[in-house]
Structures are given as structure tokens and as C-alpha cells.
């Protein structure tokens, strides 16, 4: 060792000590950095992500489309889909057979732009079959209905193309050159009638080209069509406690989980549209027939029970039971059924009977929508009445009352009733035959008045109603 003075030795020792601290400190920083490495590995790299498996055929499609910058969004979307790692690419879905109406030659391959449930059925046969028998698949069959008259004639055919068909689905027409008619396509309406005879398009909910189950399970996917003044399902849902909880806990919902790992009450706690109407619970499998668990139809003037409604009601109750006790479930459905019955008996049936009688008496013309009373009646059941009923089924109080029955009652009493009375006082009288309308003539009893006055004097400091 070099001969150092004591002072020098001490300062050297001090330096060594300092260096030791530096080494120790740097080592701890290294430890943190290496921990970060582990985190990056697990979160971002995931030890071998699933990468697209591109066959030689599909490589041709992809290379050319990317090079020519045509519809590259779809390709990049596909790359993150679950189809991609399995080698299910362009050709597997877009391939057409000779003789297909919408087949055409494209760069050496016979393809069709349109991918229909018949194509998806090649792998997803269960889902396609269930969907095919559901009400969704029938959505485009409104062409013979009054609604179609309203859109097509009263408004205009372009409205049907971009409006009605946007949700319900168009009837796709193929032109001479095998390409698709612009008045009928592009269209992702859920009941689209395809040239190959199949009905519907899976891409209505599982948007292309990522076909993500996570996206399909979002309420917004359904809410694209199931919304609005005539059936505010998504609005009512979002008002309901279910919707509030969902919105507050979206990150915990694990929407991307496969069905076996997406069980209500266990893997996630707040129902979406899919939960009640489609998804698997512990005891039920996924169904793509969205009507399987619906016992009432809230669509017509007067709501009726559907075929096999006991089984359907049982199925729906089972979903509720995944989270709730039987006490809650029973009572809810009692409330809902009674509310719907109220609508039917007090407003729906009487109004329909009245309109039928007026038509029979030739007091109104057979042409729809040409007289005011027809519009009032239409909105009464089609808009206001439906809002009330959807509010009932979704536990959305505001939609039951202010946006539902309040408006039903208002239209009924101050618009519909006077118009009926104008045309036939006798029909108007029969209209009010239901118990619920007796208050018009009888008013309030003396006891009711006394009670109400007491309320205003005590609670409202003597101010009368509206003050």
C-alpha cells in the first residue's frame, strides 16, 4: 500500500465511503429500472403477442391495397381483430362462388364486396342461425307497413335509404356489372336483405373489420338504433341505476373477456344491454336471438304477451337472479307488468278501439297520416306510449312519468279526446269508460281535498299549488 499520511488516508477513506454510497445508490436505481423492465415486458410485450397470420393469397390483397392506399383502414382494423392470428383474412370472407349474384372478378380472384351471415355462418353457424330466427333479422320487413309509408311517401324515398334502412336494413340490389346499387348500399342495417337470400349483417353490432366483442357489448352499439323518441332504450338504460353503475365502472367491466369468463355477478357486476338480452350467465348460454328472453312486445298500440312468454320470462328472471335476490326480481316484474297493463287498459286499448270505430263509421279517411287525429293517435302509442313502456321495463322513472305517461295522459286528454269528440261524441264517451278516467267527472272527494289543503298549509307555508 502506498505510504500515505494519516490525513490523506482519512480523506481517501472518506472518498471510498462516498463511492460506496454511490455504488449502493446506483444499484438501487438499477433495481428500480430493472423492475420497470419487468413491467414493460408483462404489460406491453406480453411475451409474444398474437400477430396476424397472413397466407400467401391474403398477402396479395393486403400488399396491393396498402401500396395503392385503398381502404387501408379496414386492413389495419383487421390486423387487431381476433380473426387475424387465426389466418382468417380477406379471401376467407370475401371469396365468392361462380354463380353468386354479387360476385365479380378482381385482380385474379372472384370476390364479393358484401359479406353476409351466410359467409359468417361458415364458422359462426350457431350465432348465425340464432340471429336468423330473431326479430333483428326481420327488421327490413317493414316495407309493407305504415311506417314505410310514412318514410317513403309522406317524407321521401331518400329518407328510407339513409334513415329507416340505416337501422332496419336495406334490400340490397345488384346492378348489371355485379356492383351494388347506391340506393341500397353501403348499408349495415341489422335486417339487411342480402342478394344471397340471407337476412341481416353481423357487422351491424360487431363492426368491421375488427369485429370486436368488446365493442359489441358496449351499450352504445345497441343504442345506435335503439334510441330516440319512439323507443328510448339507451336513454332509459342510462337513466336507470344499471346504466349509472355501468358508466361509473366501465373500466372494471372486462368487456373483452370470452363468454365463459364474462359472467354477471361474478366477473362483472353491472348489466349492459347484452347482459340481459343475449349474454351467457352461469346457467344460460349466449343467444343471438335477442327476443329469447322478452315476454312482452312493447311495440304495438296494445302490448301483448309473446308466444311462450312464461319460458321467456323465466329466462330473463334467471339473468336478474345472477345478481339480485328473488324478492327484488319478483317485485320488479310485478311492477312492470302492472304498469304495462295500466297503459293497455287505460290508454292503449280504448284509443285503438276509438280509432277502429271512427274508421268503420267513415269519420276518418282510410289514407293514413292525412288527418290530424291520425298523427295524434300515432304519436300517442308509437312515441309517448312506447316511451312509458320502455321506462317501465328499464326501471327509468323519468321515462315512466314525465317523458312517458305524463305525455300519454296529456295527449290523450287535451288532444286526442277533443278530436274524437269532434268526430263522434258517442265514441268519445266510450273512450272514457275505463275506471281510470272517472276523475274527470267525479273530481276529488271531500276527504281528498281536505288532505291536500292540509299538505299545502303545513308543508308549503300556505301557498297553493303552483305558487
Amino acid at each position: 500500500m502506498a505510504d500515505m499520511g494519516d490525513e490523506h488516508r482519512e480523506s481517501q477513506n472518506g472518498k471510498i465511503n462516498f463511492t460506496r454510497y454511490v455504488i449502493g445508490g446506483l444499484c438501487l436505481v438499477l433495481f428500480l429500472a430493472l423492475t420497470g423492465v419487468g413491467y414493460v415486458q408483462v404489460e406491453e410485450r406480453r411475451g409474444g403477442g398474437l400477430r396476424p397470420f397472413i397466407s400467401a393469397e391474403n398477402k396479395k390483397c393486403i400488399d396491393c391495397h396498402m401500396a395503392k392506399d385503398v381502404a387501408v383502414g379496414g386492413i389495419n382494423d383487421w390486423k387487431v381483430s381476433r380473426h387475424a392470428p387465426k389466418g382468417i383474412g380477406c379471401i376467407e370472407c370475401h371469396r365468392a362462388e361462380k354463380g353468386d349474384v354479387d360476385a365479380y372478378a378482381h385482380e385474379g380472384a372472384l370476390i364479393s364486396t358484401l359479406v353476409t351471415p351466410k359467409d359468417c355462418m361458415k364458422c359462426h353457424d350457431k350465432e348465425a342461425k340464432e340471429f336468423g330466427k330473431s326479430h333483428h333479422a326481420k327488421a327490413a320487413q317493414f316495407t309493407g307497413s305504415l311506417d314505410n309509408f310514412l318514410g317513403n311517401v309522406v317524407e321521401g324515398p331518400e329518407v328510407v335509404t339513409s334513415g329507416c334502412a340505416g337501422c332496419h336494413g336495406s334490400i340490397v340490389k345488384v346492378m348489371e356489372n355485379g356492383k351494388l346499387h347506391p340506393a341500397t348500399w353501403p348499408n349495415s342495417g341489422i335486417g339487411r336483405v342480402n342478394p344471397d337470400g340471407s337476412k341481416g349483417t353481423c357487422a351491424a353490432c360487431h363492426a368491421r373489420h375488427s369485429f370486436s366483442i368488446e365493442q359489441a357489448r358496449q351499450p352504445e352499439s345497441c343504442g345506435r338504433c335503439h334510441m330516440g323518441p319512439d323507443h328510448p332504450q339507451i336513454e332509459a338504460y342510462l337513466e336507470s341505476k344499471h346504466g349509472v353503475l355501468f358508466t361509473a365502472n366501465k373500466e372494471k367491466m372486462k368487456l373483452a373477456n370470452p363468454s365463459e369468463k364474462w359472467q354477471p355477478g361474478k366477473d362483472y357486476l353491472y348489466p349492459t344491454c347484452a347482459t340481459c338480452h343475449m349474454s351467457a350467465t352461469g346457467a344460460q348460454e349466449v343467444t343471438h336471438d335477442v327476443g329469447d328472453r322478452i315476454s312482452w312486445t312493447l311495440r304495438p298500440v296494445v302490448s301483448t304477451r309473446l308466444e311462450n312468454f312464461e319460458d321467456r320470462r323465466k329466462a330473463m328472471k334467471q339473468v336478474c337472479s345472477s345478481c339480485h335476490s328473488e324478492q327484488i326480481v319478483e317485485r320488479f316484474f310485478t311492477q312492470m307488468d302492472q304498469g304495462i297493463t295500466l297503459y293497455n287498459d287505460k290508454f292503449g286499448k280504448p284509443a285503438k278501439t276509438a280509432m277502429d270505430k271512427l274508421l268503420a263509421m267513415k269519420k276518418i279517411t282510410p289514407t293514413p297520416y292525412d288527418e290530424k287525429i291520425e298523427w295524434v293517435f300515432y304519436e300517442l302509442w308509437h312515441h309517448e306510449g312506447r316511451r312509458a313502456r320502455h321506462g317501465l321495463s328499464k326501471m327509468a322513472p323519468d321515462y315512466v312519468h314525465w317523458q312517458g305517461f305524463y305525455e300519454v295522459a296529456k295527449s290523450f286528454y287535451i288532444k286526442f279526446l277533443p278530436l274524437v269528440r269532434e268526430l263522434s261524441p258517442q265514441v268519445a264517451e266510450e273512450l272514457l269508460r275505463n275506471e281510470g278516467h272517472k276523475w274527470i267527472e267525479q273530481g276529488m272527494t271531500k276527504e281528498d281535498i281536505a288532505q291536500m289543503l292540509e299538505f299545502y298549509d303545513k308543508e308549503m307555508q300556505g301557498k297553493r299549488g303552483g305558487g
Partner: protein
Amino acid sequence: MQTQVTTANEPEQKNWIDYIQKDLPEHLDWWPYTLGAIPLTLFGILVATGLMLTFYYVPAPEKAYESVDQITYGVYLGWFIRGLHKFSVDLMILFVFFHVIRVFVTRAYRSPGELKWVSGSVVLFVTLAMGFTGYSLVYDNVSYWGMTVVTNMLGTLPIVGTPLMYLLRGGEEVSGGTLLRLYDLHTKLLPALLGGLVLGHVLVVRILGFAEVKGSRGFHPFYPEHTMMMGAVAIGLLVLLTDLVMIFPPGLGPPANPQEVASDVSPPWYFSAAYMWITLLPAPLSLWSLLGGAGVFVLYPFLDRLLLERGWPMPVVNALIGVVAVGVFAGLMLLDLWM
């Protein structure tokens, strides 16, 4: 810790520990003089990570790119080990350059230390060869065309050119044989050679001693002072490397396509200047000027001594040459980037 107690009678017994513990002048604490320790540490890291990479890399042309792809995207922490390896190469060569500049500007090769410089310059060349052979193993476009261009260039040398080219290529064309040979060079021959050369260089520096630096009076022993500092530097480097790898994880260019010369192929940054030099100057001149320059580089201490005797102000000359050389190097690099 041995303390040599000397008595008047016994002659001092010097053993090898004494040589190791021989005093290091205090200026070695100052950062420009520690630059050499950094490439040494990085070399250790390169050997360790390189060895680990051989557990997954396959040196056959059909499999090479795929195996590198696997390491980068498939193997657990593969990206990290490969990233460490890649960044260590860049940093090692960068710090070797800094070290060379420092030695050059301070003229630490002065007599009797010329061998320090000569041994160091061989280390530099072998390091660059390691960089070249290593990059070729990825077998992406840059690798393939790099292999082709470099071996082509060597082939233009007179007499030794063609046999040398055949030796490196394992035949007339760049093929699977080329890859295998470069793999052998990179993982067996050159690391052993480089390890020995580095050890030799360090020993030569220790034995021949450090050139005098004005103002540096005190001394400190190798252990524990200097070793501890080197330890701290090494760990600091590891932290830096880890952070760099996390922020800039390694990627992979398109696989080698022998049919098409990619227009945007250019070598790694440390070869950029040489590559541009060869591109800009006409054929025989470019290669010969490079070789000539390398020769002057290796023998510079002797040139320095010659010129010093003639009265040239070598410190100033060196400073000037350093500035010009760095400027040209950087300029050519920027040119490559821009082109």
C-alpha cells in the same frame, strides 16, 4: 491489503499484487481520463448479453431473421437482452471514439508509451470488425447489403483481395456460408482476440505507465479507490442502458431481399462516415485513402515524435487535427442521414 514493511536489510520483494496496486496518478479521477474504463465495462456487458443471445439465435439464412424476430417479439425479455446488446455496441464505439480523441489531444502516447497507442488502435479496428460481423447476423436488408458491399470492397485490394473476399464469403457470392463464417468470427474468433487485445492494452498501459499531466501530483492505489470508482461507473452505465432500452426498445427492419437493392440501405452510424467517403470518392482512391489513413493512424506516435523534433507545436497540431477529423466525421454522417 498488503503493507510492505521494508527493513534496511531485505531488498524490496515485488510481487504481482504490487504491480496491480502500483500508484495511479490522481488525475485519473478526472472524467476525461476515465473514458477508457467505459468501453471495458461495455465489452463485458456485450460478452454477457451476446452469450445469452446465442441461446436463441440460429445462424442459417432461412432461420436467422426469424430467430432475431423471435428474440425481439417472442422470447420473454428477449427485447431487453437484445436492446442491451445493441445499445452497448453503440455506446462502446462512441466512448472508444471519445477515448481516442482524449488520448490524441493530450498526446498520452508520448515516448515511451507508443505501444499503448498501437495496441489501442488494433483494439479499435477489431471492435469495428465486431460491429460489422454482429450486424450482419440479423440478416435484414442492411445486413445483407452491408455484407455484399464490404466484402466487395475488400475484394478490390490487389493480391490479397480476392482470396480475402472468398475467405469471408465462403465462396464467390454472399450465401449461407457467409453468414456462418461471420457468425463464427463474431462469436468465437473475434471476441477471444478482442478480449486478449483489450487485456494486453490495459496491461501495456499499466506497465508503461501514464503520461505526465501538469498539476497531477498525488497518487492513489488501484484497489480500493480506482476499482470502486470503476464499479460505480459500471453500474451507472447499466442504469443508463436499462433506461435507454426501455424507452427505445429494439426493432427490426425488413428481411434481406437479395433480389432488390433497397435504396435506403445505409450502415450503422459508426460506419456512416467511411461509407460516405467511399461513395463520394472514386473507386481505387477511396479505399486506398482509407487504408492509408488507417496506417497513419496506427503509427501516429512515431510521426508525432518526428515532427516534435522538427519543432512543430504538436499539442496545437493535434488539437487542430482533432477538430477537423471530428468535423469531417460528423459532416459525412449528417450527409448520409440527409441523402
